[in-house]
């Protein structure tokens, strides 16, 4: 790779890459996202590589891409230019795909997506309902490139926004463009990005730092992971543009320890960009210099908070500090620091390339562009979805997500992670944007959307989040450290059937105190999951307190498993699977559960073919 020193160099490079790519008649893309990895995509890819390596067929290119979104149907294989979409591909399917589809152009029915609504097999990605209603501006390129190949990124127009920014625009002009686009921070708080950049640019200081937050601690959200894993150059390009606009000379990408592939791919991208002259001194011959390195996290949720993250990069304990002085003025080592989330950075090249007018034409009045959500939990199609702001929850959950998973009615969706709340199904007509979600007691957060059905207990969910936050509280300030602990105790009591009439009012009072008096965002928003659950699902809490009953049959202290004599065939499957031998019975005769031994793991219910095991 030779150094790119001008726009014409970049154009020439792109032309050469495209010419090379045109030699291939077909591109086989195997999804290499983490979800597909769990389903064995690496074996599928290796099998393809082996078979293609052997044959004299040099017209087919094999590509190992980043996450394609529909993780639940992995491993996913697509074939271009035909646009064929195969799902749940296994090793044994590889020879068949090569001989039939690649060789003869025949489509293999058993690998196609089955649309459960129309009962039709669907050939291409575009026709799958999961993708149809999406607008994959940021995520879309994941399927078109191999994350470890900078050439693939250049081929889809990568680093052209950077060239435009460095050579045709001044720093202020870039900031004005980002401001005009209406882009707001995708990490959760939704702060206007252009405004932040402007503040950092204006802050006095000779050295300024640029930080990319890939801590993504919100449980149930993984879009940042998939972006940094699948398209690291887009994040890098955004950061370089930002650095030029702000006047930053050095950058960090802070990656969670749980995301090893994301840091590896980001590291590779940094090395490639340096070699190509897109990082380092005198980028594209503009005179501007900037470099980036990776900083790794250590598994602390609070480090998603900007001041804690900065402490962590400095090699210290990740405790937040008061934000009277903002990080744009005093951040890393006391220098002005501009911190944005992965998805925010990845939006920047799009805005520069296509213009703010185009960007702001998508979305609502105050929330522009698209947002990536991780649609997970009790919904049929789980995965990453990118939709224009303002789309309704109903459309996301029922049209894209395909609705309920296993016969149980969907009752709520949790957004915003531990800082957000549960939104009941009655409010599913709500448009998804920063302000509407906050208005109903939740928040956008980084984009987790966890669907809950009748089998989800809201007391259990509230308890889960409070314990989560209690464990992740850094312990620096008292309201968060102690308050959450006491809230957890009250919720434990309710879940065990030991709550009383005062429990709920005490819980509400405590939640408000924690929210009002905590130091950082972790504590300030900690009340949301509890208060929203109480606001919309109070009868469930009352059932636990007054009738000692868990309506969703989740809270183990309040439920009991039993075997119906009439339905039991005596097959013995339950007794075999029971981990503590709490089930006895003779063969072909009705079995019974010894309640004093039963650990309520539910395995017996899972294996019973005649639905004789019931739980109440």
């Amino acid at each position, binding site marked *: 790779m030779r150094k790119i020193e001008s726009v014409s160099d970049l154009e020439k490079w792109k032309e050469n890459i495209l010419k090379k790519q045109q030699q291939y008649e077909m591109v086989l893309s195997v999804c290499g996202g*983490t*979800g597909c*990895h*769990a*389903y064995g995509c690496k074996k599928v890819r290796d099998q393809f590589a082996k078979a293609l390596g052997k044959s004299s067929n040099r017209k087919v290119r094999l590509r190992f891409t980043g996450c394609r979104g529909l*993780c*639940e149907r992995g491993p996913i294989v697509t074939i271009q230019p035909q646009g064929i979409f195969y799902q749940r591909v296994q090793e044994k399917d590889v020879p068949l795909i090569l001989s039939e589809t690649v060789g003869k152009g025949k489509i293999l029915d058993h690998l196609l997506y089955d649309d459960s609504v129309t009962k039709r097999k669907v050939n291409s990605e575009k026709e799958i309902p999961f993708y149809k209603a999406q607008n994959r501006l940021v995520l879309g390129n994941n399927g078109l490139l191999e994350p470890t190949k900078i050439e693939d990124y250049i081929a889809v127009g990568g680093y052209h926004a950077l060239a435009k920014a460095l050579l045709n625009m001044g720093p202020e002009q870039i900031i004005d463009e980002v401001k005009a686009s209406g882009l707001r921070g995708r990490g959760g708080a939704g702060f206007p990005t252009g405004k932040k950049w402007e503040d950092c640019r204006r802050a006095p200081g000779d050295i300024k730092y640029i930080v990319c937050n890939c801590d*993504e*601690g*919100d*449980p*149930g*959200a*993984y879009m940042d*992971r998939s972006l940094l894993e699948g398209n690291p150059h887009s994040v890098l390009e955004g950061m370089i543009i930002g650095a030029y606009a702000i006047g930053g000379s050095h950058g960090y990408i802070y990656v*969670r*320890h*749980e*995301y090893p592939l994301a840091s590896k791919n980001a590291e590779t991208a940094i090395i490639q960009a340096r070699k190509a002259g897109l990082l380092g001194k005198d980028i594209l011959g503009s005179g501007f210099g900037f470099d980036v390195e990776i*900083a*790794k*996290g*250590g*598994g*602390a*949720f609070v480090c998603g908070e900007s001041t804690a993250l900065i402490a962590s*990069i*400095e*090699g*210290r*304990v990740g405790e937040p500090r008061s934000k009277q002085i903002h990080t744009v003025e005093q951040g890393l080592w006391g220098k002005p620091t501009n911190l944005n989330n992965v998805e925010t950075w990845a939006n920047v090249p799009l805005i520069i390339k296509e213009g703010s007018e185009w960007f702001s034409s998508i979305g609502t009045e105050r929330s522009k562009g698209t947002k990536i959500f*991780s*649609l*997970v*939990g*009790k919904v049929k199609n*789980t*995965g*990453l979805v990118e939709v224009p702001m303002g789309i309704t929850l109903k459309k996301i959950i029922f049209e894209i997500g395909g609705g309920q998973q296993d016969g149980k009615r969907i009752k709520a969706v*949790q957004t915003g*992670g531990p800082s957000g709340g549960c939104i009941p199904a009655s409010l599913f007509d709500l448009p998804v944007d920063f302000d509407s979600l906050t208005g109903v007691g939740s928040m956008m957060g980084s984009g*987790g959307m*966890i669907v*809950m059905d009748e089998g*989800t207990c809201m007391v259990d*969910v509230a308890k*889960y*989040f409070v314990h*989560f936050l209690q*464990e992740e509280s*850094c312990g620096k300030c008292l309201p968060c450290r102690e308050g959450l602990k006491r809230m957890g105790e009250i919720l434990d009591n309710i879940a065990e059937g030991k709550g009383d009439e005062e429990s709920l009012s005490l819980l509400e009072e405590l939640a408000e105190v924690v929210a009002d008096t905590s130091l950082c965002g972790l504590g300030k928003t900690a009340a949301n999951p509890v208060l929203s659950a109480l606001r919309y699902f109070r009868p469930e809490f009352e059932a636990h307190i007054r009738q000692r009953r868990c309506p969703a049959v989740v809270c183990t202290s309040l439920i009991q498993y039993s075997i119906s004599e009439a339905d039991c065939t005596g097959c013995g499957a339950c007794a075999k*699977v029971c*981990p*503590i031998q709490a089930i006895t019975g003779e063969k072909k005769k009705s079995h019974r559960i010894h309640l004093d031994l039963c*650990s309520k*793991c*539910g*395995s017996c219910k*899972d*294996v019973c073919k005649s639905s004789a095991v019931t739980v109440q």
Partner: protein
Amino acid sequence: MDFEQVGKIIDKHQEKRTALISILHDIQDRYHHLPEEALRKVASRLKMDLNDVYGVATFYKSFSLAPQGKHSVTLCLGTACHVRGGPKMLREMKNLLEIDPGQTTQDQLFSLNVVNCLGVCAIGPVMLVDGKFYGEMNPIKARKIIEKIGKNKRKNGVKS
């Protein structure tokens, strides 16, 4: 235990204080925990107070001061895994291995850990065994995976 590698790891990170967390990660990858001797060496080479190094080593959940077992079993307890039966998985693993999260079995074969999200939310509940992800788990499937590893290893004898 040979601590020569610790010096090499610190060299690799150019003795940078900023790299403390990365250094500790590398040490943990090599020794399966953070031995006291290694922390002392890190403190002296980075010219830091041992208390501060210890503070970092105990603040972040990824680090362990106690030796970890040969096989690591990590359960995801993120929200998506939670609503799909994560707690059942935890109960099963605690029963099966007879340890709590953060502990290691007496024969040093398994360490059980929980994390708040592994970022593979679409296919929960998720279990991570020695770096390999297992999706759509239930207690029965999980038990089989662990028992298979345990059987093979115990049969062949455990090398400490």
